Structures are given as structure tokens and as C-alpha cells.
């Protein structure tokens, strides 16, 4: 059985030369060698570096052609001979469904992912069909494509894209539907009228035959009713053709009218209409309606005359309210004066097809607005999208959301994400990223704020979109009143922190700060511009050695006032912008870039960072003596900083690291990571210390005594050392926790409406100030 073994072994050992790796080198057939391509993470080979959206049409006259791109000039920098027309052909050929058959049927949207390896670009393609009374088979196939060199982005977010593009297509299609139904009903009335005229015409013809010479007077009389043009048309009409056409149009109307049920969308169109109306002059309204009259006439004019220029201009205008209302209200179509039409769909090729705007009217405006939003949203880097998605999950419940410099850190009341990695004993595992079905972008993008979409507003619309529900709020009250239930109870001094996630966190309806947009740190870094918070911080750090003390004031909630003469306004504004990213909490108006009146006591409740300026002689009045104890002052004139001295590691580290970074972006990313770390420590402090028994007993006792206070101090310091927090750093963490607590209190009181607005408590922090000289 093993007889041949030695021979075989000898064959391999002797005859096969071993390669250096110890394995025999067998030449593989060509087709098995995987094609090797150099990795191209920056998409350098791609024909287009930037993402763009393309709308293309399969025109019945010209074949596939591009219609609109977002942004408009996206392909100017295209390489490798990339041609939009070619690309449109490629896209439309992928999934072009012709609706065959005699009867009219509605077609569903479909989407597909396309890779164009030749150009190194990839596309999400969304096909949809619009209806046009003038088009062949009444259909106009279109597609929208999100084109990107980043394949991974499509893979990761194609489901979100599908849902977003569906919304756009709904806008287009609904606007189109309103018009189409109107057109068709006009057409129907035309046909009915034609039928009537045709029977008259037939009678006359018969009479003509019968009384060829007998009664010329009568004939003349009858002919007087007739229009020679109509006669011309009527000659081509057959009774059967008319009947078929009427049956077909009635069928189409039956199918389409049932779809007109989106009253929200109609309301939306109506507001758009009113907006544009209020902006345009009142006398234009009349013009518009007359133009629209022409418009509808020309649509149905059988003569097939090319439109005059004036009419073409009118086509691009949005239709007037009356016109839209006509189409909404089907009872109104009697007002339309019908005319004689041909039944055969004879198309004149000299007549151009209607554009997207003409086909969808307000739907086009609305849909393109959405598309621009989609482009702004998805054209960002994939990592940004990913982080933002994760951050969005921590936005609710909003009272628990901690932000520093308006960028999301984490949520104290939900244990999404970060906790999972640290704590081993999470009782119910929670997912990092929410499922696509309930995806966040869906909510962000679906909102009305989309018209003015900015990535910073995405979160905003998210919280606005949430509906407030009384029952949920009451359960929130209950939960907040029993902090242990919400937060989970943790023993402060055991090394194992157990965080219990409550079974149902129904805070979702929480809306706390509707006015202030928050952004994710990733978005902050990617979209860093001169206006961004934190811009110029690197140079600030480079210039002032007192930076750690400055940051300490900001991070422990002590208001920082930068004062100088009016000449220094630009400098001071720039400093405020640079330091903004260290202001915890996202309460409105916590930062004021330039103030010229003296500071007031009530300002302390809101301002955390203020730039102030005055003429030199009255500069002393800016910060009254009574407030000097409570604010840190950075005086640009005397070049002094008066604030509590910082003794700790974290902020000094930020200062020291400045030399390692030559550019602001990575430095700010580093700072974000430091702040994120601090936030985590605050999260532990909150759950383990602030909501536990230690804190509870402390609240009951009267802790003015040094003994009590030092005990409290001792406990918190001990806890702090567990979190590796030094003297001053624990104060920062305490303040971050305080911010969250205040948000919760504020949340509980927010919807009680009484005369006289409740005024917030002001936390005063009298502390020993040191005066630092700034060089």
C-alpha cells in the first residue's frame, strides 16, 4: 500500500529545487494569479476626486443624457477623459426597465450600485420614472446617482442613501403627479369635446353627401359653426380611436388619482409657493397666471407649434398658486376650455420635451434642495460619517449629553458605545451603531431644516424632529427623581464599576436645547475653517505660556473675560474663537465674542467666555469690583491674567504637546481625544460618585463644617486618584458632572409656562486668584 511512497518522496525531495522560503515554486497559470493593484486610499487614480450627484435622463429623442449635477461644476477637474455623457449612458444602461404592454402601469423605483473601474469611481444609482402627457407611453425615465471614488462609503451607507434618495424621488414624483393628473384630465375633457364635435362633423359630412346641391344655404349655416382647423383635425380622427384613447386616459386617471394623498407634501409646496410669492412682486402674479394659461394651452395645442421664447421662459417659472390649486382640486377642471385634439400620439420632433423643473414644478425645487443636503452630508469623509453616526446615537436623552465646545462628547444617561469597552459587567449589551432601519440620517435629513442643511444642523434637526410626548416626560420625571434607577448604582470605592442599563430608556422624546446646534468632533475636524470653533488655538498656545490656567478656568466653569481696548477687537474675537472649543455645555449664549457694556451679575449665569472692549480710560469699568471674585480676567492691555492657578497634569500636557504639532487639525484632534478622555472620567464620577449614597448623605447634612467638607473632599480626591486625576483635574471633572446635572434640572423645568421666566441659579466660584504675567 505504501510501496510507492519512497519514490514519490524521492521525486519531490530530489527533483524539486526549493525556493528560499522553503516551499516549492510552482508556476501558477495566468488566470489564477490575482490581479495586483496598488492600494489607493486617497483615490488618486479616480477620475473625480470629489463626490457628486448626477441626475440623468433616458431621453426618447437623444438617448441617455446628463441633466443636472450637484455641484454644478463637479466635473471640471475630471481626469482620464471622464465624460459625463458616457457615464450617463453607462448608468442608464444598468437598470433600464421599459414598461411594456398596452395598459398603463406605475413603475417602482429601483436602485443599484455601479462600479466604473475604468475611471475608478463608484455610484449609487436610483432609477425613477416621471410621467409626461407629451412623452411616448407617457413615461420619462430618470435616474439619480451619487458618484464617489470611495467604494467603501457606498457599501457602508447605501441603505441610508436608498432611503434618502427615495425621499427625493417622492418629491419629484409627487410634484410630477399633480401636474400629470391635471394634464390628463384636461386631455380627457379634450377628448370628450372632440368626440362631441366629431359626431357633429360626421352629421355634416353625411348631409353634405345627401344634399349635395339641394340646400346650400343650410350647409353654409352648419359650416359656419365649424372651424376649418378643427375640420382638418377631425378628418384624421376615427370613432374607434377616440373611444380607445378615452378608455386609456380614464384608466390612467383611475390609477394615478388615488396616489394623491400626501397632504404634508402639498402643504410643503404651498408654503414654498407663498415664500416665492412674497419675495416676488405682486404684479408678477398676474403675469404668471396669464403665462400659465398659455402654458397649459401650449401643452395641449395640437398644432405642434414650437414655443415662443416668452413661453419658454414661462416654463421655467414655478406655477402660481391658482394653478397648483387647480391641479389639487379636481372639481375645477370644468373651467378649462376644451379643444379638439388628435387621438394618435403623433410627436413633432421639433418640439422639445419638458425639463425636470417643468415636470415636477415645486417638487423639483424641493427635491433638488434635498439632494444638495444629501450631497453635503455624504460627500464628507467616510470616517466622519461613521463617527457622526455613533455620536448621533448619544445625542439622546438630551439632558445627559455632554458637549465641550459644542462637539459631542458622550451621553451620561445612555451607555451606548464607550461604556461597553470599559466595563465588563454591562447587563444588557447595547449596540454601537443603531440599526439602519431606524437610522439617524433618515431623521436628520427628513426634516424641514434640510433646506438649509449644514452638517452642524443635522443634530439640531434630529432633536427638533423628536416629538414631545407627555407620558414619556412623566416617566422621565420619575426616572430623574430616582437617579439610581437611571444611572445604575455603583459603589464608589470598589474597583469594579458596575453600570446597570435600565431596561427601557424612553427619553427619546427629549428636546432640550432646540436653538443650539451641536456637531460631532469628527465633523468639527473635517470641516475646520477660519470660522470654526478652535481655529487659531495652536497659535494661541504658541503665544501664551499661561494657556493651562486659561483652559482650567474654562473647563471648570469659571467665566473667562478677555478685555482690551476697542482697537484690539479683532484680536480678542480671534482669541474667543480659538478658546471656544473648551467651553463645556451647549447652553445658548455661553460665549460672547464682543461686549462693550460692563459685565453684570446676571451675565454670570450664561456667559462662560466673553470678549470685552472699551476705550482705554473706561476699561476698568468693564468688570465691576463686585464681580472680580467670580471671573477670570485676561487683560490684553496690561498683559496679565488673573485666575485660579492650575496645578494638574492634563492641561499642562496639552500645552506641552503643542510643539509636536505643526498644523491645527491634528492638534485639535488630539485635544478632542483629551477632552473625550476627561468626559469618560466625568461619566464614571457621575455614576459612581454623584448619584451614590456618598453624595446623598452629603446633601442631607449641613456641610459647612470643615470636617464634613474635608470628608467630601477626601472621598472625591480618593475617587479622583483612582481615575488618575490630580488636584485641579478633579475640579474639571466635577464641573463636567455639574453641567449634566444642570441640564437635567433645566430639562425638568423647561416646559412649565408661567408669567415671568424662571431665572437660572448662578453658581459663584470665589477662589484664590493668581496674577500671571503674559509675555
Amino acid at each position, binding site marked *: 500500500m505504501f510501496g510507492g511512497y519512497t519514490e514519490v518522496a524521492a521525486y519531490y525531495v530530489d527533483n524539486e529545487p526549493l525556493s528560499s522560503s522553503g516551499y516549492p515554486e510552482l508556476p501558477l497559470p495566468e488566470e489564477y494569479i490575482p490581479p495586483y493593484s496598488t492600494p489607493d486610499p486617497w483615490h488618486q487614480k479616480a477620475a473625480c476626486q470629489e463626490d457628486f450627484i448626477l441626475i440623468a435622463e433616458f431621453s426618447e429623442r437623444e438617448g441617455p443624457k446628463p441633466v443636472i449635477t450637484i455641484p454644478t461644476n463637479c466635473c471640471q477637474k475630471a481626469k482620464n477623459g471622464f465624460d459625463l455623457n458616457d457615464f450617463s449612458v453607462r448608468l442608464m444602461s444598468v437598470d433600464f426597465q421599459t414598461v411594456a404592454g398596452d395598459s398603463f402601469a406605475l413603475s417602482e423605483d429601483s436602485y443599484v450600485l455601479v462600479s466604473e473601474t475604468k475611471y475608478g469611481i463608484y455610484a449609487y444609482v436610483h432609477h425613477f420614472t416621471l410621467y409626461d402627457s407629451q412623452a411616448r407611453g407617457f413615461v420619462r425615465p430618470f435616474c439619480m446617482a451619487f458618484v464617489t471614488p470611495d467604494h467603501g462609503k457606498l457599501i457602508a451607507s447605501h441603505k441610508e442613501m436608498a432611503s434618502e434618495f427615495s425621499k427625493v424621488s417622492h418629491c419629484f414624483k409627487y410634484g410630477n403627479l399633480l401636474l400629470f393628473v391635471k394634464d390628463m384630465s384636461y386631455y380627457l375633457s379634450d377628448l370628450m369635446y372632440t368626440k362631441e364635435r366629431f359626431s357633429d362633423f360626421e352629421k355634416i359630412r353625411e348631409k353634405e353627401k345627401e344634399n349635395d346641391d339641394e340646400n346650400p344655404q343650410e350647409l353654409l349655416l352648419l359650416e359656419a359653426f365649424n372651424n376649418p382647423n378643427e375640420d382638418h383635425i377631425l378628418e384624421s380622427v376615427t370613432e374607434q380611436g377616440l373611444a380607445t384613447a378615452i378608455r386609456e386616459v380614464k384608466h390612467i386617471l383611475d390609477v394615478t388619482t388615488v396616489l394623491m394623498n400626501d397632504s404634508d407634501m402639498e402643504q410643503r409646496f404651498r408654503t414654498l409657493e407663498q415664500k416665492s410669492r412674497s419675495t416676488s412682486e405682486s404684479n408678477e402674479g398676474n403675469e404668471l397666471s396669464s403665462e400659465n394659461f398659455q402654458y397649459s394651452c401650449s401643452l395641449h395645442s395640437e398644432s405642434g407649434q414650437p414655443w415662443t421664447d416668452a413661453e419658454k421662459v414661462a416654463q421655467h417659472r414655478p406655477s402660481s398658486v391658482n394653478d397648483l390649486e387647480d391641479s389639487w382640486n379636481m372639481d375645477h377642471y370644468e373651467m378649462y376650455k376644451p379643444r379638439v385634439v388628435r387621438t394618435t400620439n403623433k410627436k413633432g420632433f421639433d418640439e422639445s420635451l419638458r425639463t425636470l423643473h417643468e415636470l415636477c414644478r415645486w417638487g423639483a425645487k424641493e427635491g433638488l434642495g434635498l439632494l444638495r443636503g444629501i450631497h453635503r452630508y455624504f460627500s464628507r469623509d467616510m470616517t466622519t460619517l461613521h463617527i457622526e453616526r455613533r455620536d448621533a446615537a448619544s445625542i439622546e436623552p438630551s439632558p445627559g449629553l455632554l458637549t465641550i465646545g459644542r462637539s459631542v462628547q458622550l451621553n451620561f444617561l445612555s451607555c451606548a458605545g464607550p461604556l461597553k469597552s470599559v466595563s465588563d459587567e454591562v447587563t444588557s449589551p447595547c449596540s454601537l451603531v443603531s440599526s439602519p432601519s431606524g437610522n439617524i440620517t433618515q431623521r436628520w435629513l427628513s426634516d424641514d431644516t434640510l433646506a438649509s442643511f449644514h452638517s452642524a444642523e443635522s443634530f439640531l434637526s434630529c432633536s427638533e424632529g423628536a416629538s414631545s410626548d407627555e407620558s414619556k416626560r412623566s416617566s422621565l420625571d420619575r426616572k430623574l427623581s430616582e437617579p439610581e434607577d437611571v444611572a445604575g448604582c455603583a459603589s464608589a470605592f470598589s474597583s469594579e464599576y458596575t453600570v446597570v442599563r435600565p431596561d427601557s430608556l424612553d427619553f427619546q422624546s427629549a428636546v432640550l436645547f432646540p436653538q443650539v446646534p451641536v456637531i460631532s468632533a469628527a465633523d468639527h475636524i473635517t470641516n475646520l475653517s477660519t470660522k470654526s470653533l478652535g481655529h487659531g488655538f495652536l497659535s494661541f498656545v504658541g503665544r501664551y505660556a499661561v494657556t493651562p490656567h486659561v483652559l482650567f478656568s474654562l473647563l471648570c466653569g469659571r467665566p473667562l473675560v478677555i478685555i482690551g481696548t476697542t482697537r484690539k477687537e479683532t484680536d480678542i474675537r480671534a482669541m474667543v474663537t480659538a478658546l471656544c472649543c473648551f467651553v463645556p455645555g451647549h447652553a445658548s449664549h455661553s460665549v460672547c465674542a464682543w461686549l462693550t457694556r460692563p459685565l453684570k*451679575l446676571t451675565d454670570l*449665569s450664561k456667559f462662560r467666555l466673553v470678549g470685552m472692549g472699551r476705550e482705554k480710560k473706561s476699561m476698568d469699568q468693564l468688570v465691576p469690583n*463686585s464681580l472680580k471674585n467670580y471671573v477670570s480676567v485676561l487683560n490684553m492691555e496690561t498683559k496679565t491674567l488673573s485666575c485660579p492657578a492650575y496645578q494638574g497634569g492634563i492641561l499642562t500636557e496639552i500645552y506641552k504637546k503643542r510643539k509636536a504639532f505643526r498644523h491645527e487639525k491634528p492638534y485639535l484632534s488630539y485635544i478632542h481625544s483629551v477632552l473625550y478622555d476627561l468626559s469618560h472620567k466625568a461619566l464614571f464620577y457621575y455614576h459612581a460618585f454623584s448619584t451614590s449614597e456618598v453624595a446623598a448623605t*452629603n446633601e442631607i447634612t449641613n456641610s459647612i*463644617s*470643615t470636617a464634613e467638607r474635608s470628608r467630601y473632599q477626601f472621598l472625591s480626591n480618593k475617587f479622583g486618584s483612582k481615575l488618575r486625576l490630580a488636584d485641579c483635574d478633579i475640579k474639571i471633572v466635577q464641573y463636567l458632572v455639574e453641567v449634566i446635572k444642570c441640564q437635567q434640572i433645566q430639562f425638568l423645568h423647561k416646559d412649565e409656562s408661567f408669567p415671568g421666566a424662571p431665572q437660572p*441659579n448662578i453658581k459663584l466660584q470665589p477662589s*484664590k486668584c493668581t496674577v500671571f504675567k503674559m509675555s
Partner: protein
Amino acid sequence: DAQIFNPFTEIQVFNGHTNIVRFLVDIDGQNFASAGDDHLIFIWDAFDGRRQQVLDEHTRPLTCLSVFRNCASSCILLSAASDKIICLWNPLSGDLLRVLKEPVFTTRAFGVYSDNVDVFYSGGESLCMWSHNGELIKEIKRNDAEDVQMITMLSKSILIVTANRKMTVCESDETDLEELVNLPLHNEKITCVTRLNDSHFASGSLDGSIILWSSNDFSRVKFLSLKRQDFQGSNHCFPYSVQCLSPVDEFYVICAMNCGFYIQDIRTNKHLAAVSTAHYSKIRAASFVFDNLVLATSSEDGLIRLWGVLESIESAARVMDSEYSEKSSAPVLDTFFGTKDYKKRSLQLLGECTGHCGSVYKCLPYGMEGFMTCSADGMVILWKDGLRQ
């Protein structure tokens, strides 16, 4: 100054007045009224800082504000202004109950005995007794150049009416009011009169003298403080003027004299504690706050300073944990000094509440946690224990 013993690190600012706020009156422990030179009375909710009501009827700066609880235990807010009318309000609903226009004079003071009476008194050019619903019962016309400045209730039926240097004892029953006796004149204008216990009251005046009187026969018992030499000082600034007399535990009184204050035993005339220059300017009010552990003095310099005995503060917390209910009835000074054996102590400056930028007029202890101040800068501030919040 880290002020580790200053518990008042959280404040609630009641913003709305546009002029000096002179009066601060507690209504029911939660709501309070403030009024001053902007003709308006605001009713605030001290708990969350809401402005509950704005009472707008007066056309001139207010001259006095008081709360009157009658037998039916309904609460009436009395206000008078230099527009010569008196208004009766329901402070919680904001309803104007009645406007008293006759007799026509500017009321300078109200006299209200604490509880369960159906009458109140008002003084100005003449002295009037009113029923709880604003019916005039009796008017005593005074043939005096000086208006009534203060009315001090010694008991339900005895009141001391003060006008400049003169004090008059009046007696009333529910139906009638008459002047009993004029007390010997003071040297200078009387600045404060206060009831110390059932049998004594004290009066202080600009010249620095404080006189202890008997409530039984209205005789002068003794001087708690003598008239000073050169009491007028330079530029008539009266450096020894007695600004405030607050009774403590029947036999003790806090006297605020110019920029300083002291706590005095009225039996022995001994000073238990004294701070001669506590403020930069005259002290307007002094009261015990923070469960009697802290003495707060408010002054024309815009500061409120907190004074206490360190040892008692350090030991106090434990006691209060266990015997909280007992403590509340214990003598104030027991808590303040931390011992029943009162001997002369030195007081420590525990902290300084800065925030007002004008003269602080009134200081009203509020609940367990803090006190309220009103000031010439138009602000009313509730100072709270930051840690307890």
C-alpha cells in the same frame, strides 16, 4: 480668597426692578415681595426665581411695605408710597383689594402685630388704626412738625410710635387707640426701636446711645451704650450712629454701629463679640443665617459679610444631623457660639458675598438654606448654599 467656609456659592438673581429696592417682605415662606423706588411691587417665587406678580398701582416711590395676616389667616400685603395712598393687595393672586386715599398723607410706617389681629396701624402726619379690610377706625392727629417714622409693636395693644427724637407710647384695643405717654426725648434722631423681650425694649439713635426701656412702666432702665463725644463727626457723618438693633434670645442684642457691630448682653452690658470695622461703610442690617451658625451683615458698601466662630462651625454639623429638631428650638447663641458658656469670643470673617454693586438695604433670612438681600442696584439676590443645591 478661596472662602472655604462661605457656603453661599449659589445665587438666584431676581431681576426686574429699575431703581433702588428698599423693601423685602416674606409672604409665606416661598413667595416674597420686593419694592422700592421704581413704584412697583414684585412678587417672586424664591424657589425657582419666577416673577409671580407685578403690582402696579403706586405712582411714587414706595415708603413702606408690610404683610398683614388677619384672623381669617388670609394674607394681605400693605403698601404705601409718597403718592399718599395705601394699597391692600392679595399678594398671591395680585388682586388690588382696596386703595385707602383718606386721610391724605404719606404713610411712613405700618404697625402690624404678628398674628391674629384684625387691625393694623399706619403712621405719617397722623396715626391711624384700620380694620383688616381697610375701614378707618381711629385717626390721631398729631400736632407735630415731625412725621411718624416708625411704629414698633410691643404687644397686641401697646405700640411705640417714633418721630425724630420723640417716642410716644400708644395703647389700643380693637376699637380705640390713644396716646398714653411721651417718653423723654433722645439727644438725636432715633434710628431704631426694637422689642427685646416681654418686659424690655431698646432704642438707638444717631449719637451712639442705646437705651433700654421697661415695657411695664415705660421707664428708662439703663443705657446699653452711652452717647459719644463728638458724635456728629466731621461733615455730620455720625460715626457712632446705631444702624440696627436685633434682639437675640431675649437677653442679647446685636448692635450695628456705623461700620462695626457687637453682640451685647443686656443684663451685664458685656460684649460677647465685637468687630469694630466690619465693613467699609455703614452696616444696614444684621441677621443670623445658615441655621444660626453664621451672622450676616450687610452694608452700604454693597458687601454682605459672614461672621462666625470656627470651632462651633466645625463641630456643628454632627449635632445637627442627630438632633435637628431640638436644635431649631435651642437658643440662637448656643448654636452660634457652639457652647452654652458665653464668654467673649473673637469672630472670624468666614466669607464675603459680593454681587451687589450698591448699598444693601435689607437682609432677610430665607428658609433653611440662605438669605435674601435687596440693594440700590435694583437687584434682589437669594444666596443659597451651593453644596446643598
